[in-house]
């Protein structure tokens, strides 16, 4: 067993998501042998992230300013809004380059087991953003699991009376995959969401 500050470091690293005791040990020994300036840079970056990164007042995405880069960008289509669970989802959609509107980050999905209802999510902020009529279309892009579906249904019911176009991301077959390897749920949804070929 390790003692003192080295044990503390291994414990701290082990608290991080996706890092088990073995990985924590490996990273700790890597840092022990690394150049001093590299370690200092890492330590400073950790502190800086803590100090500088906050959440965009408008969309809830991570940002270094009060308003994030995407919300500030005038080239973005102001009439389209994509609702996601987490900031990570914004990055995933941005990578596609398919979407030119803005985002709204809920900060999770409805899950009563974890004590999360609509009040714990940024739903009120969403309704406020929609109140001025500038946004015409809302795309609900919550995860395709039970909690994500429940959140999507909840939002769709709240938004439909506002007279907006509300849509849900299609769920279906992975590109490059084989039909025979798709599970029944995915295949069933792909059937339900089939489209006409012109």
């Amino acid at each position, binding site marked *: 067993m390790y003692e003192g500050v080295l044990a503390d470091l291994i414990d701290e690293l082990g608290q991080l998501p996706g890092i088990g005791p073995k990985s924590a040990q490996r990273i700790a020994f890597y840092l022990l042998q690394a150049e001093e300036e590299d370690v200092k840079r890492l330590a400073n970056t950790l502190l800086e992230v803590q100090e500088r990164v906050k959440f965009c007042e408008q969309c809830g995405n991570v940002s270094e300013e009060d308003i994030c880069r995407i919300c500030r960008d005038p080239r973005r289509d102001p009439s389209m809004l994509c609702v996601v669970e987490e900031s990570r989802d914004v990055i995933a959609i941005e990578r596609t380059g398919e979407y030119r509107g803005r985002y709204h980050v809920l900060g999770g999905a409805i899950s*009563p*087991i974890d004590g999360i209802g609509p009040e714990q999510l940024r739903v009120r902020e969403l309704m406020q953003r929609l109140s001025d009529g500038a946004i015409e279309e809302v795309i609900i892009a919550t995860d395709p699991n039970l909690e994500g579906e429940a959140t999507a249904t909840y939002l769709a019911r709240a938004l439909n009376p506002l007279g907006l176009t509300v849509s849900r991301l299609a769920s279906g077959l992975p590109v490059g995959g084989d039909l025979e390897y798709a599970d029944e749920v995915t295949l069933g949804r792909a059937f339900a969401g089939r489209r006409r070929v012109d």
Partner: protein
Amino acid sequence: MDEAVPHLQVRQLTLQNFRNYDDLHLTFPGGVIAIVGSNGQGKTNIVEAIGYLSTLHSHRVASDIPLIRHDHTSAVIAAEVIRGDRALMVDIQLNTGRANQARINKVAVPRTREILGVLTAITFAPEDLAIVRGDPSERRAFLNDIATQQFPRLSGVMADYDRVLKQRNALLKSAGGARRSNLEAVSATLSVWDEQLVEFGTELMCARNELIVNLAPLVASTYAEIAPHSEPLSLSYDDSLSRSEERPVTYDPDAVRKAFFQALDTKRQQELDRGITLVGPHRDELRLTLGRAPVKGYASHGESWSVALALRLGSYDLLARERATPVLILDDVFAELDTRRRRHLAERVADAPQAFITAAVDEDVPVDLVGCWLEVDKAEVTQRDR
């Protein structure tokens, strides 16, 4: 054997750190295999492992922990299964502290439930008396095992239903403490979960009804053969909706869905007061009746054994008819049965393409039928002549 009906056979079995075995390799022929040994030597552990591959749980214990050898963190059950003229490798690693991992032909599957249907087996064991005498949950578990072996897809629906039920109950519980002003907000979220509960619940109820309708005549005729002087045995589906006003007239999905929504509506206040979901397949009952009296509480000890045996053999017949003749496992049961029931069971064993029979002594096995004798002594398995 009828060529049109494929049957299943376990050709090889490997157990690693499973119960009292550190590394066991066995090869089985078709026909009747007797596994004999004193209590506590490990004979049931072998058939328990085969049963696990077919239902993903032990027929003896609710948790996987006792299956993993003491002082180890994982156990492996691997089998080569013959189905018709195809051989398939299936294995599962049981882990403490993390999810189990299953593979088909050495390829990992994303969820263990995807191996359901690879090996179908029917186990009859002393524990089955609980199906007859125990709580409704025992009978639901019995139905679930047969349903998932017949339609493996349903295990996914069951998992989703359980998850929705947990979420909905958590919401009902938290709403119980909420003030009246909050009630409107709660019911908006509740209706979202209602929708999912009804979607998955309807699918389960329709599947259960179909299963019971198909199973009932097979179980009834088996029972009549085992106990010709008894009142006739009947099975019926007592779903939780039928106990309220909104009984569905037919098990057409649309009718069930409608009745389910209405029942939730009627029970809303009660559900909020008690903080639990009061309607749905988690409150279903499989009703067993002898003549006009319920089996539970009225049947004698012998009758209860006959009913349990009839349920298992009827399920065996159903799977044989609908999918492929399953592997038959009789765990320590011959000693419990009287002459007539033993004789009936022996007849069924004689017809089975592959049957495993465990017993403490040779006399508790239909000796003339056995093609392969295995002796178990302190986790050592040896083949011997009669």
